[in-house]
């Protein structure tokens, strides 16, 4: 039992390690000077970029000057094109989360609570998890066609693994004494799920969701590049085909901004639904 538990926790840690590294990097800037440096450094980089573009030191066909990109960005905002694509991607992310994330959460908790279910599903997850999700895109297109469904399914698959794996690990990490308390106080199966397994695993589940959203963003961009008529991925791909490099950069920036806003949002959600978590 304990060996199995370790495996799940390790798996969750592997999926979480990249994320944690980012967190740590951000945390190291605790000192005021460090914070200043980290605020300034992107601007310095942008300034160098701008300067070298103007002085013709870099090829502006590949690296257009930041101010040019900004102009394009404003233009795309004004015309509403940017919002149309952003909205299309966000909708797919949302449906992908509902379709992949929620079942992953429920399945993960059930696997954590029930040893037979875990024994049955663990090998399937262990075998399919390492497959690069982008590699199944052709198969997904074949099965679900070029329409909305294939995009949503891609996001769903990307969200499924980190959320499921983290939910299992989260339940297995719950101190056994709490489950004994539940039994001793005659909690039914559903009550065990609702009052112990779900809240107990919530910290792990939340980091699974954060990872899942990151994965979803990667996959939606890839999926929209093939056979889509909308979305940020499509916008980038379309810009490439007409060699509108500025627009490509706008797409990249928008994806980065969405990712950043989601992480802020989820951290806020976490604070709200896990009020017992000790601030560190």
């Amino acid at each position, binding site marked *: 039992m304990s060996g199995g538990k370790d495996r799940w926790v390790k798996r969750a840690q592997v999926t979480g390690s990249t994320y944690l590294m980012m967190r740590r990097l951000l945390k190291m800037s605790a000192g005021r000077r460090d914070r200043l440096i980290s605020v300034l450094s992107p601007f310095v980089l942008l300034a160098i970029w701008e300067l070298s573009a103007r002085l013709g030191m870099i090829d502006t066909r590949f690296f257009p000057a930041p101010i040019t990109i900004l102009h394009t960005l404003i233009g795309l905002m004004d015309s509403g094109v940017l919002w149309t694509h952003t909205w299309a991607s966000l909708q797919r992310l949302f449906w992908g989360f509902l379709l992949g994330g929620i079942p992953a959460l429920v399945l993960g908790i059930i696997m954590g609570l029930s040893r037979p279910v875990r024994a049955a599903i663990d090998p399937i997850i262990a075998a399919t998890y390492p497959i690069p999700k982008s590699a199944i895109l052709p198969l997904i297109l074949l099965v679900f066609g070029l329409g909305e469904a294939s995009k949503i399914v891609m996001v769903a698959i990307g969200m499924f693994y980190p959320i499921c794996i983290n939910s299992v690990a989260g339940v297995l990490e719950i101190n056994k*004494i*709490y489950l*004994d*308390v*539940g*039994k*001793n*106080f*005659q*909690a*039914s199966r559903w*009550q065990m799920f609702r*009052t*112990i397994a779900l*809240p*107990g695993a*919530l910290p792990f589940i939340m980091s699974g969701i954060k990872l899942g959203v990151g994965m979803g963003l990667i996959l939606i961009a890839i999926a929209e590049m093939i056979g889509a008529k909308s979305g940020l991925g499509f916008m980038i791909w379309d810009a490439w085909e007409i060699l509108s490099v500025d627009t490509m950069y706008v797409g990249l920036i928008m994806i980065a901004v969405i990712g950043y806003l989601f992480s802020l949002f989820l951290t806020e959600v976490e604070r709200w639904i*896990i*009020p*017992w978590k*000790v601030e560190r």
Partner: protein
Amino acid sequence: MTEPVKIRIKNLTKEFHTKDKVFTAIDDVSLDIAPGTFFMIVGPSGCGKTTLLRILAGLEKPTGGSIEIDQSDCTRPCNSMVFQGDSIFPWMTVWDNAAYGLAMRNVPKGEIKEVVGHYLERTGLTRFARAYPHQLSGGMKQRVSIARAFANDPEVLLMDEPFSALDEQNKTLLQEELLRIWDETKKTVLFITHSVDEAVTLGDKIMVMTSHPGRTKALIDVPFERPRGVLELRARPEYGELVYKIWGYLREEVQHAKADAECAGGKS
């Protein structure tokens, strides 16, 4: 003429089967406990006290023998346990923790409010009803655990070293509180402790267990009247005599346990 019995334990045996051997934790324990008894169990560490309580709580199956708890009132839960160590849910407020048993049994809201309010008051936690466990001290957490068990109003209370992690002042305070709450309800209590003082202070009857495997070494009646004051009791000469007598039983067993441990340590 037979005396009424609340808990009947008959030839109870518990073996744990690990990979390479069978470990007997409890060996042929038989006990009758009368209703309303404050029953204390003392014994060296690892002698099977927790195991015995977990079997009574239905969390562990006995290997042999039987247990019976006489359930006079079917609407009340059979038993509630105060667990050894930290067992209150970190994700629930003090109030929700104390209300847990009642909520699981779908007791009407109004009744929960009344009962939980009462026990939080008795345990001095009213002001902390909305706090989360990480905002409490160790002693306060232990009180929540006690309030949770009492609020559930079980036929039998099982308490597994509830005060062992506390400092001396807190322990004495909580012992007094526990006696006060118990005097209101006169429940049958099974209370595990490794402190002889605590056993004599709280109990009506004390069972001393042998170290590995756990058997009944001695059953001692505590003659002190109730209600008791913890400190007054400790000042009396009879108290000291009883403590001394029980220590006599226990000393041999603790030495056995130590010898066992050294022997096992030497081999590996």
